[in-house]
């Protein structure tokens, strides 16, 4: 547990209003807290506890101080004790949820945060933290609901608007996400993360000029902001304006030649420009700087593939799979290159794995069918082709609602990598 962070998160709800009838121990404890003497405050409260009736509020506050002092087990025990005393004591549920969350026990934390939000529906922190937890667990629709409530409870919270933007973005509602990010930026214009999120959302929404405006606003305050510089390059790259993208990425690399993401994006820009030599150079550099970026290995492999260098493709696909063993596309291209290298048995194994990981792509079935046909396995070949045809038909049926030609599968990845991307 991280005491400082925990203290910040809990601080708002821990503060209480004092009156003339406030007992003296309360005054003393508050004074010790104000001085930052958590141990002293804890000792005083434990003394009070010995002479008091069981109190959920007291247990919760002791738990809080134990948490601040990094006594995790004790803190959790106190929060649970508080809930046992008063199951409707929202604060204890909230503290328990946050403590469990920070410990990494997210599945256990969520019900506690949910309970707190239920018991304290008008408390901003409860709704906001519950929304954030839902978001982290991939429940974007529920997160949107909670974040909307949080923003209604505290419209001036830029963090809540940003959180709402993230949830809406995850749901695919680009327009609403952009509006939420815009609000966060309006409230807190100096926050780099919020403005970067807003810019990237504008980029995804097909408003590249406005996106660049956001990144440039960031640069006006912080000319060396690598994230903003890189995202401007990313905007040009996604627009297909490759010359400007390359210029921008080169500029970033002059400031920080060790950025694997920028090397990757630069390599991708050169790839799209069909400058395969430079693409290889920068993609190779990206893999050297951060071997954990599976996409860099994959894209480097694609460039070798374009050049007909199948041994290099096989090496890079295997490197990508070493990083991400669930990388279906890498198994797929590995199988393709193995087939093209005249290694059908290995190709079949790779394609079979690609199909296992992603059975909804017709391509691996088609290749498998071709290999089996060449081997004389007519039945196996027919089955593979039939499955490919079935998936293709299903995909075409789904396409009835999707008119995007750019969504077609083509050679290699189409989009660059965000500067805030984590391997």
């Amino acid at each position, binding site marked *: 547990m991280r005491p400082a962070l925990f203290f910040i998160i809990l601080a708002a709800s821990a503060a209480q209003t004092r009156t003339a009838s406030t007992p003296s121990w309360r005054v003393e404890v508050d004074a010790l807290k104000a001085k930052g003497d958590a141990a002293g405050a804890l000792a005083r409260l434990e003394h009070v506890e010995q002479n008091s009736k069981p109190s959920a509020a007291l247990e919760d506050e002791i738990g809080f101080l134990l948490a601040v002092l990094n006594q995790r087990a004790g803190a959790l025990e106190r929060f649970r004790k508080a809930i046992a005393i008063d199951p409707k004591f929202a604060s204890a549920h909230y503290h328990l949820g946050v403590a469990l969350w920070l410990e990494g026990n997210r599945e256990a934390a969520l019900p506690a945060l949910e309970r707190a939000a239920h018991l304290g529906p008008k408390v901003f922190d409860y709704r906001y933290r519950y929304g954030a937890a839902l978001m982290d667990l991939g429940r974007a629709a529920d997160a949107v609901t909670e974040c909307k409530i949080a923003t209604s409870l505290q419209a001036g919270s830029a963090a809540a608007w940003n959180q709402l933007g993230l949830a809406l973005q995850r749901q695919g509602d680009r327009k609403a996400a952009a509006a939420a990010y815009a609000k966060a930026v309006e409230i807190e214009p100096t926050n780099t993360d919020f403005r970067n999120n807003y810019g990237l959302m504008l980029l995804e929404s097909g408003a590249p000029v406005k996106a660049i405006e956001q990144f440039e606003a960031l640069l006006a305050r912080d000319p060396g902001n690598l994230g903003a510089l890189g995202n401007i390059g990313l905007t040009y790259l996604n627009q*297909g304006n490759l010359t400007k993208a390359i210029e921008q990425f080169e500029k970033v690399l002059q400031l920080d030649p060790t950025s694997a993401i920028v090397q990757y994006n630069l390599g991708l820009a050169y790839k799209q420009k069909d400058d395969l030599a430079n693409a290889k150079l920068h993609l190779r550099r990206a893999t050297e700087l951060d071997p954990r970026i599976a996409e860099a290995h994959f894209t480097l492999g694609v460039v070798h593939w374009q050049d007909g260098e199948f041994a290099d493709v096989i090496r890079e696909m295997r490197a990508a799979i070493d990083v991400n063993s669930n990388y279906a596309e890498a198994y797929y291209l590995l199988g393709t290159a193995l087939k093209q290298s005249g290694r059908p048995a290995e190709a079949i194994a790779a394609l079979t794995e690609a199909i296992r990981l992603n059975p909804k792509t017709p391509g691996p079935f088609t290749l498998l069918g071709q290999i089996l046909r060449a081997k004389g396995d007519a039945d196996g070949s027919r089955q593979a082709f039939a499955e490919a045809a079935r998936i293709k038909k299903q995909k075409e049926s789904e396409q009835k609602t999707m008119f995007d*030609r750019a969504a077609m599968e083509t050679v290699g990845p*189409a989009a660059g990598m965000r500067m805030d991307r984590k391997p």
Partner: protein
Amino acid sequence: MNGSRRGFVRSLCRSALVFSFDQIARVLPAKDSPLGVQFINVAREAGLNKKTIFGGEKRNRYLLETTGCGVAFFDFDDDGWLDIFLVNGTRFETAFDAASTPTNRLFKNNRDGTFTDVTVKAGLVRTGWGQGCCIGDYNNDGHDDLFVTYWGDCALYRNNSDGTFTDVGKRAGVTTGGGKLPRWNTGCAFVDYDRDGLLDLFVANYIDFDVKTVPTPEGGTCLYKGLKVACGPPGLDGGKNILFHNNGDGTFTDVSAKAGILKTSGTYGLGVLAADFDDDGWPDIYVANDSTSSALYKNNHDGTFTEMAIEAGVAYGADGKSQAGMGVSAADYDGDGRLDIVKTNFAGDTSSLYHNLGNNTFDDTTFQAGLGRNTRFLGWGAAFLDFDNDGWPDILLCNGHVYPEIGDTGTEAGYRQRKVLYRNLGNGAFRDVSLDAGPGILEPVPGRGLAIGDFDNDGDLDVAVNCVNAYPQLLRCDTSLNNRWLKVKCVGTKSNRTAIGTRVYCTTPDGRRRMDEVRSGGSYFSQSDLRLHFGLGQSEKASLEIRWPSGLVEKMEGVAANQILRVVEGSLSTATLR
């Protein structure tokens, strides 16, 4: 020295609008080119001076406005010189006056490097959403007829042999009309699929397109690189290809269902190529489909076809993924006696090269052959052509982006794009020689249809290109190479008169055997010269083996190089029957 001169010329081309590419090209003789060959755009001085109109110039609301149209090299007046037919389109929401109304154009070859517009005299004036064209003597009267596809009723122009044509499409039953929606007919080819000596007709179809219901860019449904663009074809219903059987009395019957053509799903068909891919003596039909698997209709010899592109390995890219196929061409690029296929695709993808292994099996050799290195171009017209007459078929691809909206964004290779010329190295691989092939190749244009033919009969292959909302190109091949050539004009007697489907083997004394077939249609919506052209390298003579669709096989020995040979079926003494 040459390099710096070329660099200087290119820099002029980029910056100085006062010079056109063809004007600048005058300063660069072919002998200075490392290839020994330069392609020069001579369209303007040749008299091809009418713009092709096709949809909006800056933005398009419908996919129909983007696909452009084809071009044909054919000798309509049988004078031995190739004439040029250019399909034209139209625009939505534009009222043209009588003088500016777009129409298809027929340009007669004046045999001096220039052409005369004879459209009106020939009776070929028509305005509409013209698409493709193909040539064939459907009534075996000795004069090649012209079929033009449309979004709407197609036209079958019967050649009256007096310099005029009559549209007999309706009487012949090939307009394709009569449904609820106008059909979007695209690529076409005359093909004698049942070998009865009468040319039948295959017409690809793209989309069941309803201008009233198709989503428009304003709705924001369809984005490309963040730009709102015309929607489709994904998400729209595919059209159904049509096969017409020639009844021999001037009429045709739609046999699509009976022949098994409809047994494929909607296929977004564009480029069509009819050829004998499995060497069984019967023509098969390949269709380049957009955004889905392409189709290969194998001829079953009984009036039916079996679609087997997936099994044959010509449906997808090398990795088994769908591609946006546009144009298609065939040739025996490696001299193994089988017809291979090249196909153009969308931007972000490579073109496809399918090597024919025999037995209805192809191997995608795009990457091994060196065609994987270009992905930024959006390809349309495609042709195998032996531009340097060395005996190895090279590849020319015509490009141009589909969305004019990207014109000002600097996206990829832009809206106007240069062509790509691959030289066949004779070892199964190709080298991109575009940068050395002259200004006609490098000039960026919104190219679509592309046809190959030797319009000046000088023994090298020239190129005609139809562009959208731009002037057409006529790329004259100027060569300083001394390679020899042989051109063979086949005339059927028992077989169809145009001799479509005739296969000719051409063997030089060094033992190298070339092969090609007379074919209708091909490339993207276009018709190339029906005369077969063989580059002979330094050989002074060659032997010919001619396999007619009727089954007759004839041979000629010691044929001298550098001539245009007219061969009439059954007129040779060494004839044998297969």
